[in-house]
Structures are given as structure tokens and as C-alpha cells.
């Protein structure tokens, strides 16, 4: 569970820390690629692997187009975070309607046989293959993103734009190009989160994005907005906490404790538990 939240938080955090948009539509950036994979593999009978690639591509295209149509004009007018937030709510509804109409308001699942079932026994640990893939994906994405953001020239430019678009532009950074790259990278990470979780939970629907959005947002805030290591640890932590709370306390308190933790972090350390390095870096 937590690996999915972590992957989502990584994409969401990158989007937020660089573009300064609390993009509520990010949940749909995860759900729509999953819907596309289902549509292409189940209804159009494309090979599952091809459908996954197409779903990822669709997710990136949707995010880039949405940014160009909805958020870029706001950035140009320097509307600020509130205007972007309201716009993203509108985008959320539009993309949700698209997902609903493709699935005909049903909850769908990937074709039978396309997702491995059962459990793997790894020594003392028993784990579902889908959960293992999700966990490995979370670690690989976090590591790659960390290297990309901290060690590459483009990563430096992304951090510069995240700190100040004006300063970055004055330093010779092509801000529009960096925004495009950030949107694409974020969208691809969010798409991976959606596609993987849809396979693990047998749920391809608009609701997939809503649930990811709230838990992924909590992971991003707790971990430190834009901090790769923090998002990974917080996402996994929330997933583990959810299961443990349900197991040893009550399912009734599951969400209350997750969001209580979010509130606590906001009060005690608003920048997130692991945000120190990011602040220094910026």
C-alpha cells in the first residue's frame, strides 16, 4: 500500500516543488493512464505491455496539454497558488468525467491473466508479486529521481526554477523547457503509480486517483515537499501505519491517525520531516 503512496508522492512533490502548483488534478494524472491501459488491453485487445507504454504516454500527453492550456496562462499572469489551485480543481472534474465516460462509471480491472496473482515466498516474507513490483518501482524511481534532480544539469535547472523562475531565467535557464520536462517527468511517475496500483487493487476507475491524491498528498507533506527521500519514507510509513492501525487499534481510526499525523507535522514542522536538505539545497 505504502509503495504506491510513495511513488505518487514523488511525482506530486516534484510537480509542487518546481511549479508551485498544488495540483489537485494529479490524482487523475494517475487514474487516466490506468484507465487507458485497461481500455487498450481489455477493450481493444492490445498486448498488455504495449498498452502500459501507451498508457504512460497518454498520461504524459494529458499532463503536458493540461499544463499548456490551464496552468501556463496563470503562470504568465503570476496569478499565484490560489488561482492555480482553483484551476486544478476544475481540471480534476474534467479529467474525472473523461475517466468516468471511458469506464461508463464502472469499476474495471485489467484483463484476466495480465497481472500475476498469488504470493511469493521470500524466506520469512510472503509478498504478492504486484506488491513486490510496486515496492521495487518505488525504490528505483526514488533513487533515479534523486540522482536526476541532484546530479544532472537538468535537475539543477529544475531546482533553480523551483526556487525562483525569475532568478533561473536570469541565469540562462530556459524556464519553459524546464516546466515541460518537470511536467513530463512528474506525469510519468504519477502514471506509474496509477498503473501499478490499479493492478494491485483490481480497481481501474476515477476513484483510484481520488484515493491516491489524499494519501499521496499526506506522504508528500509529511516527507517534505519535493524531498525524494522523505516522500519515499513517508509514503511507505503511511502504508504500514494504515495496516498496523487497522490491525491493532481499529479500522475506524485508520484515516484519523493518518491525517492526524499530517496535522501534527504541519504544526510542528511545516516543511516536512525530511525537508532540511532541500531548503539548504535551494
Amino acid at each position, binding site marked *: *500500500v505504502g509503495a*504506491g503512496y510513495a511513488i505518487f508522492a514523488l511525482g506530486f512533490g516534484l510537480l509542487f516543488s518546481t511549479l508551485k502548483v498544488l495540483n489537485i488534478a494529479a490524482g487523475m494524472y494517475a487514474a487516466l493512464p490506468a484507465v487507458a491501459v485497461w481500455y487498450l488491453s481489455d477493450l481493444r485487445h492490445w498486448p498488455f505491455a504495449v498498452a502500459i507504454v501507451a498508457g504512460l504516454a497518454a498520461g504524459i500527453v494529458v499532463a503536458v496539454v493540461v499544463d499548456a492550456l490551464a496552468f501556463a496562462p496563470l503562470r504568465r499572469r503570476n496569478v499565484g497558488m490560489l488561482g492555480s489551485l482553483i484551476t486544478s480543481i476544475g481540471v480534476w472534474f474534467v479529467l474525472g*468525467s473523461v475517466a*468516468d465516460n471511458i469506464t*461508463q*462509471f*464502472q*469499476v*474495471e*480491472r485489467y484483463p*484476466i491473466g495480465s497481472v500475476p*496473482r*498469488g*504470493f511469493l515466498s521470500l524466506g520469512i516474507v510472503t509478498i*504478492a508479486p504486484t*506488491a513486490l513490483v510496486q515496492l521495487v518501482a518505488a525504490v528505483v524511481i526514488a533513487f533515479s529521481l534523486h540522482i536526476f534532480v541532484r546530479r544532472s544539469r537538468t535537475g539543477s535547472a529544475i531546482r533553480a526554477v523551483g526556487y525562483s523562475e525569475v532568478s533561473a531565467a536570469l541565469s540562462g535557464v530556459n524556464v519553459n523547457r524546464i516546466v515541460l520536462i518537470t511536467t513530463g517527468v512528474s506525469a510519468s511517475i504519477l502514471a506509474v503509480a496509477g498503473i501499478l*496500483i490499479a493492478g*494491485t*487493487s*483490481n*480497481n481501474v*476507475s476515477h*476513484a*483510484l486517483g*481520488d*484515493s491516491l491524491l489524499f494519501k499521496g498528498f499526506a506522504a508528500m507533506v509529511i516527507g517534505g515537499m519535493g524531498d525524494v527521500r522523505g516522500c519515499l519514507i513517508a509514503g511507505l510509513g503511511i*502504508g504500514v501505519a*494504515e*495496516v498496523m492501525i*487497522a*490491525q491493532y487499534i*481499529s*479500522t*475506524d481510526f485508520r*484515516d484519523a491517525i493518518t491525517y492526524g499525523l499530517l496535522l501534527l507535522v504541519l504544526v510542528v514542522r511545516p516543511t516536512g520531516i525530511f525537508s532540511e536538505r532541500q531548503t539548504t539545497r535551494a
Partner: protein
Amino acid sequence: MKSARCVLATLVASFLVLGLGACGPSPSSNSPSSSGGASLAAGDYKIGFEGMQTGTFAATGMQISQGGQFAVDTINATGYLGKGVKLSMELRDSAGDPAKAIAAFNDLKRQNVSGVVCCAISAIAGALKPVAVAAKFPVVVAGAGLPGIAQAPYVNRINPLLSTPGGYDVAVKKVLKANPSVKSAALVYTKDSDGSVADAASMEKELIADGVKVKKYSVLSKDTDMSGLATQIMAEKPDMLIQSTLTPVLILLVKALRERGFTGVDFGNKGGATDSMYKLGGTDIEGMLMPVEYDQSSTDPTAKAFTQAWTAKFGSPPNVFHAEGYAGVYMLAQALKDSGDGTPEHVTDALAKIKTMNTVYGPMTVSDGQAFFAGTGLVIVKWKNGKIVPWQA
């Protein structure tokens, strides 16, 4: 050849429609016991239908409204309301939102409908009830399971409460009797659905009465990842899973448990008895026991006629949600027929006089606006090779 097939199909459809008129909800079989027998003046009449066409529960809402529209078509085809009477249905979307449902209700009233069929979920029914009572406007609830919704003469409910005789008292006992080794049960319910909570309380009461140790788990209707809950349930090793949850949680949890090797008794609910849920659950939900009010293999004349006519038109049998819309419209149509003029005031009076009905759920009695099983009560069905079949203990 093609035209010959068309003629044959038309003849078969006509026969079935006539058959429905003969043995279905006909004036003789469906009239309220205390009806004055007034006939409806010729003309066009409208009823309102508040359905969920978008939103989380749209899939269910669309099936219920499809059942309602089929009832209207059948009523017109069979002349159920009398000579020269044509019925139409104004459909409004509540999107599962109580505020939108109230707006839809007010809009329907402005359209001069004779009454409104509504409320697949308890949240909508709970919101509309005081509005309908204050407006003194006739409403028939079809679907929502929260106790206390009916308030005669304005708010009537055609679907029986599952906490009343013939409901879970029958179904749970049957299953436990057939599975005497069941000593512990995991009871999962949707805590943000009042109807689910009420049904869960009823299930728990029956389980405890039979000496079963119950552990309760709650989910939210928006929950989609069942892996954590499934792991938690598996750790407790219950003999039985019993769910008062909404779809898709119902199916997703069963799938997650099956993947983890759960082999106990699986007691679900009517939400699983639709083709779309079978598509989602596949073979994992084969064997899940589903207590339903309407059974497509029922030999009850009204249910049988409905099943045959629907199958002839759509090529596959109806499900329990289609039946809900159908039953709701027929209850309102019966009152409309007995009202004499179709005004909401007289329809309300006629609804108050309905004491018995033959419905697709079998024979029912009506008391203070609430329908109760008068026949066998809930029927348990299950999926077998992609088809719904009656469960034999």
C-alpha cells in the same frame, strides 16, 4: 430470412408483453386490497425519477433507472393504467449528492409530475424525506435500506427492510445451518453508508444469536485498496466473511481475500449480483452467497413475467437493481391508477391505501408506507460459471 426472423422476434416479444400484462402486475393481481377501484381518466401522465446517472454510484443508479423506464414502457404496452392513458418518466440526475437530489426533486415537482420514484442510497433518501413530507408530495423509495425512511402517506418504500422478518434473519440462519462449522465471522461494513451500518447491525445480531464470534471491520465507500484489510482479516482466520458493504468494495475485498487463500464461507450482498460486478470479480466471486430480494429464476408470476419480458427485450436477464426501479415505478403507477386524476394529492391518498402488492420481490404487505415480505423473503443466489443461480443449502 432476416425479415422472417424479425417477424418471429416481434411475435415473441408481443406474446411476452401480453403475457406480462396477463400474469404480471395486472389490475387484479396488483390492486391494493383497500382500493376504491377508481379508474384513471384518459390522458398523458408524468412521473418523476430521481436517479444517479453520474458520480460514485452511477453504475447502480443507471441500472435502477433503466428498470424504471422498462416499467413505464411495460405499463404503456399492457395498458395497465387504462384505455387512452400514456405514462412518461422524467429522469433527473442527483449524482448521489443529497443537495442535488433535493434540487432534482423540486425541479420534478415543477414539471407537474404525479409523484417521484427515488433514492437508491440512504443518504439521498434521508435528505429527501423531510423535503417530501414538508411539500406533502408522494415519493416511492426504491433501493435505500436505512430503517425509518418510510413515512406514510408521503414517503413510501417498496424495497423491504432486511432487518425485518424475511430479511437477514432468514438468510443468515440458512447459511449457518448449512455450515455448522462456522464459529467465527469477519463482518465488514461501509461506515459512511447508514444503510450498510444498519444492515451490519442486523447481520451481527443474527450471527451472535447463533453463537458465532463476530469481529467487525469498517471501510469507506471510496476505499479501493483492500490489501491491508485483507491481510488483517486473514490474520484472524475467520470461518466466514460477511459483508454489508457497497460495491466495488464488496468485490475488491473478496478478490483480495481469495488471493490470500481465504476458503471460508463468503456471504456477500445483492451488490455482487450484476454482470458488471462479475466482470470485475471473475471466478473469485463464484461461490459468494448473495441474499437478494429479486431472483431471476423465481417462479413467482410477477417476477417471472418481468424476467421473461426483460430478457426478450435486452437479451439477458435483469438484475436486482433493475428490479428495484421496476418495483418502484409499479408502486407509484398503482397509486396513480387508483387516484382517478393523477394529482399528487390523490396519488398520496391512493398510496396510503395500498396494503398488499404482488411485486417482483413476491407478495408484499405494506404498513405505514413500508413494504414487508409476505412470501419467502430473501433468496440466496450465487454465481456459477458466469450465471446467477439459486444457492442450495
